[in-house]
């Protein structure tokens, strides 16, 4: 659906400033080194972390040169050893020094013979200069040239690769993404050494100039979807991207739907698995959260561990997650509906027990449920935001509020405490935080429906919810696939998880062209070697 109508936008994509080839625009580098230095200083407001070092190189120091770098973002030892030393000292031992007279091929000569740095680029204008300088590269300008060199030696202090805080597993790799885009792409490359693993880089954010990489396996990922992602990324025009959540907000299909249509993860193994299925990963510099599209409903119930453990327990846990999802969504609503409208549904003993608990409780069941749910949400939010050191105090207070104290005070009935607690615990079963959030939002709506219309309202609400879910698309793929549209072979990884040797194909709707994962299904099943001699 979304593939075609957005094509008109391609021509509007903002061309990078460096492409403007007008003669001697104010953006172009000037010939005079002094002018350039002055311009840089003025433009950056003489910021103190910008270091500009003027040196003299070549025969008798006849060539004036300037080295620009940002303190803290540049690897100072490598700057000194491989740039300054090369230019000022090492060069003297070679015959090259004599060539370094003001002449036409000076920069090329330096680039080709002198600079012992891996990544090196030409530079012609100030926009590129500022981008490189502020990204941590070192800039070399030489007096008399309206060109310069960019040496890549970025280096700054960063967090190492640690175990991800979300989506933890018992069995599985412990490494998680970090804030550095390069490290993150390397983590994925280490898992998939396929030449077809392609990466496209984009710079998004007119001021932050955040690096964004698009990764997919060429030939496995559906080209239409790759194009669509590319288009949506190119459409983004904002001053800053600080987290992949910002990107998600721009590219997701339905902003107001409570359900996430973009998956995010901190785990390289999830990204690798998604790439192998034909999905597309979007990595954003500065955050460990990598986006995966298209994201379907079932994906939010799949934990990487499901594929690492025995298929039986994997399937049971998968079913348990769907069950917990229903509890988290409906338990308080069902409780309110049944106890205020459909008491006939309760077994007599339970009815009497519940009634006895409600004796003396001043609020209607719905108000009671809302009080408890809101209290729990407050506790949860406080638990996340507050300083770590007050954690234990928090949990003690929390246990009092949602617990026997509330019951003994006669404000809340004990059954309601149980219902709210089981709901809260169930919402944490979801392996992804996103789906838990959508459940949190919807739960209150269902409680309202249940309190006003009983089970009938709940049924109507569920019908509306299912209609909504079936109408959602993630990058052109129906959100409820493979349930609706139904696909038999894709059921292998939905409610249950079949053994890995039975997963012959990739999900069909994501990947219509190249679906085969295992070429020879017959030999896939583990079995003892056939003894050909005995001829049994």
């Amino acid at each position, binding site marked *: 659906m979304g593939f075609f109508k957005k094509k008109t936008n391609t021509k509007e994509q903002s061309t990078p400033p460096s492409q403007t080839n007008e003669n001697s625009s104010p953006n172009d580098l000037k010939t005079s080194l002094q002018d350039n230095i002055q311009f840089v200083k003025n433009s950056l407001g003489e910021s103190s972390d910008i270091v500009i070092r003027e040196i003299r190189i070549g025969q008798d120091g006849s060539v004036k040169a300037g080295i620009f770098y940002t303190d803290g973002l540049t690897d100072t030892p490598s700057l000194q050893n491989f740039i300054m030393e090369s230019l000022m000292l090492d060069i003297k031992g070679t015959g090259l020094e004599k060539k370094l007279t003001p002449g036409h091929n000076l920069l090329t000569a330096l680039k080709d013979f002198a600079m012992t740095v891996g990544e090196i680029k030409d530079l012609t204008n100030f926009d590129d200069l500022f981008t490189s300088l502020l990204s941590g590269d070192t800039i070399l300008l030489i007096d008399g040239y309206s060109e310069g060199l960019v040496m890549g030696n970025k280096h700054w202090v960063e967090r190492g690769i640690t175990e991800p805080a979300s989506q933890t597993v018992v069995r599985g790799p412990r490494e998680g993404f970090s804030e550095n885009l390069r490290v993150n792409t390397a983590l994925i490359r280490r898992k998939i050494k396929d030449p077809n693993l392609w990466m496209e880089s984009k710079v998004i954010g007119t001021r932050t100039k955040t690096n964004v990489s698009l990764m997919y396996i060429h030939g496995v990922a559906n080209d239409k979807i790759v194009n669509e992602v590319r288009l949506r990324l190119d459409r983004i025009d904002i001053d800053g991207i600080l987290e992949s959540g910002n990107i998600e907000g721009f590219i997701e299909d339905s902003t107001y739907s409570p359900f996430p249509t973009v998956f995010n993860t901190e785990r390289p193994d999830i990204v690798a698995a998604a790439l192998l299925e034909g999905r597309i990963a979007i990595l954003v510099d500065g955050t460990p959260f990598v986006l995966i599209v298209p994201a379907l409903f079932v994906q939010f119930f799949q934990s990487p561990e499901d594929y690492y453990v025995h298929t039986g327990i994997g399937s049971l846990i998968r079913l348990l997650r769907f069950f917990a999802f229903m509890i988290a969504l409906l338990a308080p609503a069902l409780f309110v509906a049944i*106890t*205020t*409208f459909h*008491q*006939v549904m*309760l077994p*007599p003993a339970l*009815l*009497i*027990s*519940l*009634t*006895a*608990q*409600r*004796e*003396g*409780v001043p609020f*209607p*069941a719905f108000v009671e449920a809302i009080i408890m749910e809101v209290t729990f949400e407050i506790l949860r939010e406080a638990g996340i935001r507050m300083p770590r050191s007050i954690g234990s105090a928090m949990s003690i207070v929390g246990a009092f509020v949602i617990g026997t104290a509330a019951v003994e005070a006669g404000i809340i009935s004990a059954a309601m405490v149980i219902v709210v607690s089981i709901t809260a615990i169930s919402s944490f079963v979801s392996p992804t935080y996103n789906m838990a959030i959508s459940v949190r939002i919807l739960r209150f709506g269902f409680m309202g429906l249940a*309190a*006003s*219309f*009983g089970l*009938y*309202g709940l049924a*109507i609400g569920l*019908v*509306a919810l299912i*209609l909504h879910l079936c*109408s959602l698309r993630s990058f052109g793929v129906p959100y409820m696939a493979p349930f609706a549209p139904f696909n038999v072979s894709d059921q292998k990884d939905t409610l249950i998880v079949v053994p890995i040797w039975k997963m012959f194909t990739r999900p069909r709707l994501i990947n219509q062209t190249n679906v085969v994962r295992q070429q020879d299904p017959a030999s896939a099943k583990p079995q003892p070697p056939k003894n050909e001699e005995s001829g049994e």
Partner: protein
Amino acid sequence: MKKSLLVLLILTLFLSGCWDRRELNELGITMAMGIDKSENQYVISAQVVVPSEVSMKTNSQGRSAVTLFQASGESVYEALRKMTKNSPRKIYPGHLLILVISEDLAKEGIAESLDLLSRDWELRPDFYVVVAKNTTASEVLNVNTPIESIPATKMYKSLKVSERNWAGTKGIILDELIKDLLTDGKEAVLTGIEIIGDKEIGSSKQNVETITSSTEIKYDHLAVFKGDRLVGWLNEEESRGYAEITNSVKSTVTAIPCPKKGKISVNILHYNAKVTGAINKGTPEVNIKIQAEGDLGEVQCPIDLTKPKTIDELEKIYEKEVEEVIHRTIDTVRSQYASDIFGFGEAISRSNPKEWDKMKEHWDEEFPEVTVNTQIDMKIRRIGTVNNSFLEKIKD
């Protein structure tokens, strides 16, 4: 399209019927109800549960677990609503377990009083209906019971358990009762409930504080109806005979005489009775075919159980005993009440609807004359954990 669908969904929310929102503590949970009649007025008694006294929570204050509200009115419904005059909570009959009808009302006819109970949406028509024998319904509901603190639960469970394990009682739910009242060629029966002991003490807590309750409520006898009027009672043996004919035995223990002297108890585990009707040369005929299987439960006479012949002999005795009970029951019912509670007419209508159509107008005259053939086949499967009784070895 999408919008109109949404509007439709929202509209349907407001179009639902039976819509009533009540908090749990606004319900007067009624588990047993009684209907009496005095001076053309219905007197309704509702046994309402006091939840805080029943619940496991410790704040019980030693008050009675149930309380009885009474109201009278021209109709059952009116009386039920009038009850709010003395009850703080509206009567909620959704969990009704048992309905007691007084003998007096039953003699006058029960049909009118049952309409509300089958019509009202709040009621599930799966509660037992019983008849208070020699007493009023309100007095039956006024007795404290041990073990089950809610008398309604006691009445419900006793009936269920005894029906299943003894077969002298029959749990009839409202739906079945109405079906029996409507079916041609089958009359209704209901189990009787009676009070044994002092009715005054029965309603006090004192009744359950002693080991032996001075007042008890107990099921006994089957009430025989003709149409919707009670016409008489079957005694215990006849009640069991009724159960044996109508295939309502699930499990029971029957004592049969030994070949010489003493008694042997047979524990019946599988029981199947089939009543088929036939028209034989213009006269109706009923065949009762019974297949029973059981174990020997108790042997009070010295016989050699290791011999297959003895077992065969015992099976014969059982068959004869049951046959006699069945015939005695049928004779009593025919001679005293002339009410076809066994459903013989129904059996005949099933086998020969055309003849039945001619016959049903004067079935009451035909019923006492119907030939009843019985064919009983009993198998003893096991004799318990010992072979011959040790009685044999006791020397005088």
